[in-house]
């Protein structure tokens, strides 16, 4: 084993300190494991803090008819039956206890008049099911889990990026990475590794995701030989801000249209007249999304590739009263006054349903000792995710992963780290400094984002996807030759050169899966195959590395047991 680098040893190493990572850490600690958590930013600042709506759990505090069965049914229907049914079942059953536990640990949920946790309605949920803390549920969840983790004495390695998972034969042996501030390399030896790195939004130009969401965990797992599942299912919100940069990607709630907002193209035409003259702007989300898409594709989009959404014809006081947080957010973050000027909106990449393939009970991947939970893992949400089901996903499967990883660590011996693997990881990281010519990683990243936004976005078509694959080949080639200036001391260009590799891997997996699935289902909308396809409804897409090639195959969806089938038929 190489001793040239700072080395840390843990039973369980967790990559990512969002809701899933922290919950996994708490569980593994409770089961006696020595736990380390690595995160790219600071503790308590993970992307989870941005979740607003709430956490879905069938507590039945407000609607007494709710229970795990309706929650399970809603989740499966939302996911167009492509979900891993066992995950959907566990999630519906266990999210209730996970919320109670957060409450025990001090999370300050909004209350009913009799002192229980208040629950609100949300799209796709049959009952009032979302427990919330104002409109900042994610922040409260992170604060609560962080306080609990601090109490239990978790070791956190902040501002550290993992670049490679290490293996001992077939099984996991640890991870290799660097300190973002100093650029020094560091290795972690671990019997179990849990990936909780979240989503992949930064592959698209317009995204609500933070800078950390570059698909690291999915790419690391893929490189280590794990399988990726249903990567075509990327959730876009049809109206996100496309301009100005300070608020780019931030969601514009559908309430703006509900309150009378008008959609226009660059010619000033209210284009919904062409697509849904009856309902106009109040048309369904997918029709609005597709109308904006068509306007942009046909050259009538706004300067920054969107449409205008205008509520300024309403009295300013009315707008401020009906849309208070929208008004304040855009005013404070980018000086956009929505009572005076139109917003420029377009599809924004919001959430990744696809990800690392895991076993429902243990969250273990196909690589022994490697686990995944949260947005980085796949299966629970199927073809589309219901609002509120992501925060509950984090705590249900974060806990399961932490438990299984701790148990796994008890059973196996200490792994050996292969020195040659470390050397290779080091060489890969240093390569951008050796380029004498070559372009900036920022240029390649910008082109990747533009390409994914226009060709592998909210609506897909075969020609675009084929072009995207060809473009990805060129971008991969360019990415091998990017040049980085300066030293390894906090060097964002160098960090991006590395993150770019992850984004290219996940982008390719998304594109290949999207090309293969010749139907429209959930978040995957094919212009050339607008309907559901029976055969595709019975199978999942799996992406796996074979040598240097990305292979795609289809596997049959496991059949539902009779009792669950009956629930869904009701």
């Amino acid at each position, binding site marked *: 084993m190489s001793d040239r680098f700072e080395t840390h040893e843990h039973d369980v190493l967790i990559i990512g300190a969002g809701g899933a990572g922290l919950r996994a850490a708490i569980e593994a600690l409770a089961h006696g494991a020595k736990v380390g958590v690595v995160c790219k930013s600071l503790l*308590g600042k993970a992307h989870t803090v941005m979740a607003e709506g709430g956490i879905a759990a069938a507590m039945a505090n407000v609607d007494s008819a709710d229970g795990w069965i309706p929650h399970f049914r809603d989740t499966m229907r939302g996911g167009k039956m492509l979900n891993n049914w066992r995950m959907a079942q566990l999630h519906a059953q266990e999210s209730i206890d996970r919320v109670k536990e957060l409450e025990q640990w001090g999370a300050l949920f909004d209350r009913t008049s009799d002192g229980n946790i208040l629950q609100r309605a949300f799209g796709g949920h049959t009952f009032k099911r979302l427990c919330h803390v104002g409109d900042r549920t994610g922040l*409260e969840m992170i604060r609560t889990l962080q306080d609990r983790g601090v109490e239990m004495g978790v070791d956190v390695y902040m501002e550290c990026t993992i670049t490679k998972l290490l293996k001992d034969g077939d099984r996991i042996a640890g991870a290799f990475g660097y300190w973002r501030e100093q650029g020094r390399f560091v290795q972690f030896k671990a019997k179990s590794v849990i990936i909780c790195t979240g989503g992949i939004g930064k592959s698209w130009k317009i995204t609500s995701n933070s800078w950390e969401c570059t698909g690291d965990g999915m790419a690391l797992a893929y490189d280590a030989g794990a399988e990726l599942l249903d990567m075509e299912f990327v959730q876009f919100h049809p109206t996100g801000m496309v301009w100005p940069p300070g608020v780019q990607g931030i969601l514009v709630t559908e309430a703006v249209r509900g309150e009378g907002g008008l959609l226009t193209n660059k010619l000033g035409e209210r284009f919904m007249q062409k697509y849904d003259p009856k309902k106009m702007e109040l048309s369904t989300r997918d029709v609005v999304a597709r109308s904006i898409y068509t306007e942009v594709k046909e050259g009538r989009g706004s300067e920054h590739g969107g449409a205008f959404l205008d509520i300024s014809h309403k009295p300013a006081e009315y707008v401020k009263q009906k849309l208070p947080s929208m008004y304040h957010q855009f005013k404070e973050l*980018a000086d956009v006054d929505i009572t005076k000027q139109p917003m420029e909106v377009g599809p924004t990449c919001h959430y990744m349903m696809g990800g690392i393939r895991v076993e429902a009970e243990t969250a273990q991947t196909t690589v022994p000792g490697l686990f995944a939970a949260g947005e980085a893992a796949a299966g629970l949400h199927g073809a589309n995710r219901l609002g509120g089901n992501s925060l509950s996903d984090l705590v249900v499967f974060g806990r399961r992963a932490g438990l299984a990883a701790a148990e796994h660590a008890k059973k196996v011996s200490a792994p050996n780290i292969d020195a040659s693997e470390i050397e290779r990881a080091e060489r890969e990281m240093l390569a951008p400094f050796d380029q004498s010519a070559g372009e900036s990683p*920022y240029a390649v990243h910008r082109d990747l984002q533009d390409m994914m936004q226009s060709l592998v976005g909210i609506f897909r078509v075969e020609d675009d996807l084929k072009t995207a694959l060809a473009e990805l080949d060129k971008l991969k080639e360019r990415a091998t030759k990017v040049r980085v200036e300066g030293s390894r001391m*906090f060097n964002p260009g160098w960090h991006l050169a590395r993150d770019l590799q992850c984004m290219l891997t996940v982008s390719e997996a998304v594109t290949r899966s999207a090309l293969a699935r010749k139907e429209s289902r959930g978040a995957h909308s094919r212009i050339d195959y607008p309907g559901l396809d029976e055969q595709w409804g019975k199978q999942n897409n799996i992406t796996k590395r074979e040598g240097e090639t990305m292979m795609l195959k289809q596997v049959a969806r496991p059949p539902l047991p009779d009792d669950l089938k009956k629930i869904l038929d009701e």
Partner: protein
Amino acid sequence: MPEKTVKLKIKRQASPNVEPHWDEFEIPWKSGMNVISAMMDIATNPVTKDGQQTTPIAYDSNCLEEICGSCAMLINGKARMACSALVDRFEQPITVEPLSKFPLVRDLSVDRSVLFENLKAVKAWVPVDGTYDLGSGPRMTPQQQEQNYPLSNCISCTICMEVCPQFNEETNFVGAATISQVALFNDHPTGAVLKEERLHALMGDGGIHECGYAQNCVESCPKEIPLTRSISRVAGQVMVQSIKDIFSS
């Protein structure tokens, strides 16, 4: 016609051991630009106003929606979140410096781990044994929840500590954020179990008596947390506790 530009003057320091210097930048203006998006633009082409090639600026940031608390820094001398610092609202050149009361890491990045140490010292958590299922948490009225809601809004940005004249090495004062968390957890039905320990922690070195009621904290908090009210509440609790201590000793 010359394009509109933004001028920034940024304090740079490669490491704690070297002398700081200032780099000046002049970059193309964009509508709605804030200090973070300006520094992102600089990172793609790190060249100073005088045409000197330099390195991208080191800083902490994450959500860019003023909810994660990462990007606190001094902008034109005032501590605030950089993601909501709109360049059009500042006199130029806009000076950007790291928070001054925390150990410098590099450029605008500082080590704020003292906040976690302080939270540990006052046991800012609800103590429960997490190895078995406890069922629902304690009931809480909507009024109780609403009273404490503002306190749980803390984003750990440490601005209240930066602006506090008493937060320094001489006093070891824990700062307003920590005291406000004590108020939050002392009020929690289960968290109150540790109330005495928390109050004792605030009686010692750097405790609540160091507060000079300058009120800078409450004026600077980006989340408008009623910090001075928390301090008054906890100060009252500390006083009651110290009287109790006299009688029980």
